[in-house]
């Protein structure tokens, strides 16, 4: 049996948060009554003409630069021709062989690994209108009696990002998308709202014998907007392809639909023959010449990108690359961490507490970093209390939990619940002496050479102090007492 490896490429469409549409001055809005944000241009009335939105070009360029793309000196728009009710001109103004940007890459983490996916291109186009199927079964095409079109969304600026087929697994696909989405949000060009369909993607899927270079026939999953369904669909489709090929069959190049209920991918009922888009340069728009100085301005104004930030965390905070990747990949957590360190605590313990208790707490409570009761100041205080020995490490975990529950300052929690670490040598000496006296047999064993019995004594002291004794000091004193 051959080992088959997944070959996955993704094509993402991101709606930009500009004020107006790509080619006309209608406002870009969400949730307003149908057909209240239209004009002759986005309704494709006879005689109407497009004019390019300057901010859309800027935002698109930000994305391109953040993905380390080359921005060629010139780009043009093309017409992509096909008939559909949500496409009023019966062509989409898009970009074809002279797009805004090419040849970039994006690094993302999957578990402990950092993977790199090449970006083929980034280009600008316009979104289609909203087509809703009525009558029939719950909004599905099959069985619907008619459809209605709302042109509010039609013409919204859309950025298409196409990857090379570098994604090695369903889990990687999911991580890639989530992390790319986080990047785009950081750039301030789109909220990438999932509910509002501001980010959608197609996946191109094939398999090949492990280690091979060749690309097999691929199938396509279109227009998804759920990370979970994407992963499930890939997990269904990849084995299906492997099975077909293993049995000597061929993969048909087709568009698939994923049914989350059955967990199966099936070919979409073919509405028509493969599209012949008849691309030609858009005569109503003149070319864009990208002034290098302006492109550099856009680059300079980019927020710190994840790759750069991770590097900085390694050098500035002395973190391992792994820890730096966890903390530095996304701005909100990275900012939180840096604010903790800024309070004056050491970078490494701050990192451990942020990646450990804090991250777990965020996941459990469903919070975004920087939200909720645990502020950088409070976490820093906790880290400091442990560092200076006022509380033990394990007590610290309890302090964290109670801090969240009681909404109380760490210091208060220590007081209220008596979690302070006992480091009073005199008091401990007395206790140590008593414990040793109370356990002569074990003392005998220790003195006889069984070093591990020390643990027993430490345990006894901790029990007597309800876990608050400074373990290091206790060990020291016990050794002295048992010597």
């Amino acid at each position, binding site marked *: 049996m051959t080992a088959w490896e997944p070959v996955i490429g993704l094509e993402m469409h991101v709606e930009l948060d500009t004020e107006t549409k790509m080619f006309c001055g209608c406002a870009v809005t969400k949730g307003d009554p149908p057909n209240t944000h239209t004009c002759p241009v986005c309704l494709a009335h006879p*005689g109407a003409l497009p004019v390019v939105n300057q901010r859309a070009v800027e935002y698109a360029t930000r994305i391109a630069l953040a993905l380390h793309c080359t921005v060629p000196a010139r780009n043009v728009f093309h017409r992509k021709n096909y008939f559909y009710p949500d496409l009023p001109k019966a062509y989409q103004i898009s970009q074809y062989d002279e797009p805004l940007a090419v040849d970039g890459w994006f690094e993302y983490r999957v578990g402990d690994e950092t993977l790199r996916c090449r970006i083929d291109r980034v280009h600008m186009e316009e979104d289609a209108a909203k087509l809703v199927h009525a009558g029939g079964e719950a909004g599905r095409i099959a069985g619907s009696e008619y459809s209605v079109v709302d042109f509010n969304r039609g013409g919204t600026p859309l950025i298409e990002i196409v990857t090379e087929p570098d994604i090695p697994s369903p889990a990687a696909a999911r991580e890639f998308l989530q992390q790319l989405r986080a990047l785009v949000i950081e750039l301030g060009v789109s909220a990438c709202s999932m509910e509002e369909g501001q980010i959608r993607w197609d996946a191109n899927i094939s398999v090949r014998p492990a280690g091979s270079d060749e690309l097999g026939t691929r199938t396509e999953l279109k227009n998804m907007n759920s990370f979970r369904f994407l992963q499930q669909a890939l997990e269904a489709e990849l084995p299906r392809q492997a099975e077909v090929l293993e049995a000597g069959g061929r993969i048909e190049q087709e568009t698939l639909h994923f049914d989350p209920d059955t967990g199966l991918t099936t070919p979409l009922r073919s509405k028509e023959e493969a599209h012949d888009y008849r691309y030609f340069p858009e005569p109503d728009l003149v070319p864009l010449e990208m002034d290098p100085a302006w492109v550099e301005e856009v680059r300079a104004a980019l927020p710190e990108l994840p790759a750069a930030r991770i590097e900085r965390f390694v050098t500035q905070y002395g973190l391992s690359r792994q820890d730096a990747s966890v903390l530095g990949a996304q701005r909100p957590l990275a900012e939180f961490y840096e604010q903790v360190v800024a309070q004056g605590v050491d970078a490494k313990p701050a990192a451990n507490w942020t990646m450990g208790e804090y991250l777990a707490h965020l996941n459990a409570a469903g919070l975004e970093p920087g939200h909720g009761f645990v502020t950088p100041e409070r976490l820093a205080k906790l880290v400091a209390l442990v560092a200076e020995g006022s509380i033990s490490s394990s007590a610290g975990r309890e302090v964290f939990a109670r801090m969240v529950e009681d909404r109380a300052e760490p210091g208060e929690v220590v007081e209220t619940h008596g979690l302070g670490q006992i480091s009073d040598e005199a008091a401990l000496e007395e206790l140590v002496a008593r414990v040793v006296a109370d356990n002569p047999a074990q003392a005998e064993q220790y003195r006889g050479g069984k070093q591990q019995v020390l643990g027993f004594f430490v345990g006894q002291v901790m029990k007597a102090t309800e876990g608050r004794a400074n373990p290091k000091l206790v060990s020291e004193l016990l050794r002295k007492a048992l010597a």
Partner: protein
Amino acid sequence: MSGVLDPLRLKAREAKRLLVDGEVSAAELTKVYLDQIAAVEDRVHAYVLVTSDNAAKYSTKIDREMQAMRGPLAGLPVAVKDNMVTEGVTTTCASRILHNYAPVYTATAVRRLWDAHVVMLGKTNLDEFAMGSSTENSGVQVTANPWDLATVPGGSSGGSAAAVAAGEALWALGSDTGGSIRQPAALCGVVGMKPTYGAVSRYGLIAFASSLDQIGPLTRSVYDCALLLRHIVGKDPHDATSVELPFEVELPEGDRLDGLTVGIPGEYLALGIEPGVRARFDETVALVEELGGRCVEISLPHTEYALPAYYIIAPAEASANLARFDGVRYGHRAEGAADLREMYERTRGEGFGAEVKRRIMIGTYALSAGYYDAYYGRAQRVRTMVRRDFARAFEGVDLIVSPTSPTVAFRAGSRTDDPLAMYMSDICTIPANLAGLPALSIPCGLSDGLPVGFQLIGPAFSENRLLGAAHALEGALGFETAPSFRDSSASAVAGEARS
């Protein structure tokens, strides 16, 4: 009221003087044209829609509010080709598919005239979607040439040209993609101009071929042409392909052509120019020299490839521009379609005429998978060669001249069975569209009683040079004949014989 208001001869310049001097009111002036329409329209059929009530009311308003509503064009009645959208007035593009279209905005060029207080008399007939050279492709009606009602007025701005020639408008707006202003102007004995590509906004001009279309004037004199052009040129934020002219359009004055070098392209004269047209052309060239101009032979070597290139580029762009007519948002929709595909196919099958369908088919074919390089790709490169021919020629000459049309007005129905023969009407005019250059046609005489047009082509943005030269030539030509509305068709002649 003065007795000299002959709608067949009155020009805008004089009409304005009469208005300003108070010799005629705006309402009276408009009425002159409305009366002429009433008198001859049943023979000419230039108008798809005459907006007589609006025109009468508006002209009356102008008289009343003369202080507020003044300016160089105020009160002057204009006809507008029905491929420019006019809010509040149905715009059909002479097509069944738009028979009931009520525009929600107004074309910029028309808006500029409205803002200058012109009086719109109505919307004129055209070949459907501006595709044609005789106006016989109109989905509404056939327009007759006022010089001989059995002949065509040319196309696609045949309605506008006929209206001006027939005295049914003082002047008119048309559009020109391959000669659609100049050729009907020539066939109808009026002045017609296509400006430099980009000089006039295309916003609101129902697109035929986006990289070739331009709006321009049809008038009874070169001066009027300049006057109308002045008011419609200029960059429009709604049209990304519009530009600000680097100068103001001047009203021409001179009567000499001293210092002007004029090129005569041998290739144009080899394009099957009929003898009568050639004779008038040669006489006009001689006149150029009498006026001090110097005429030289030049070569535009790729001329014969201009027509084939045009008949790929224009239909290709048109096939995409006309795809929006799908019955979803406006216009005709086929009844009782079982599903979307049927609705699309029948709507467009029912709504478009034969020539439009032909061009959509050619255009779609030329762009389809596997054919792009051989057809559209190649045609755009031939286009570059045509542009370079002109650029080279203009290094040595100031203007280029030719006959506007190879023939005078041809008989209605004589070319409708042969699309290629119809396309040949535009061989002299197409190259200027491919190169984006300004060009105009002025009447230079008659041949067999029908008007002959003389074409002048200039480099980009040479409108003033063109208008100045044309004005001087016009003065020397002294072409003052007006159409007689005769009808040479067999039935008419027979009818005359019988009566």
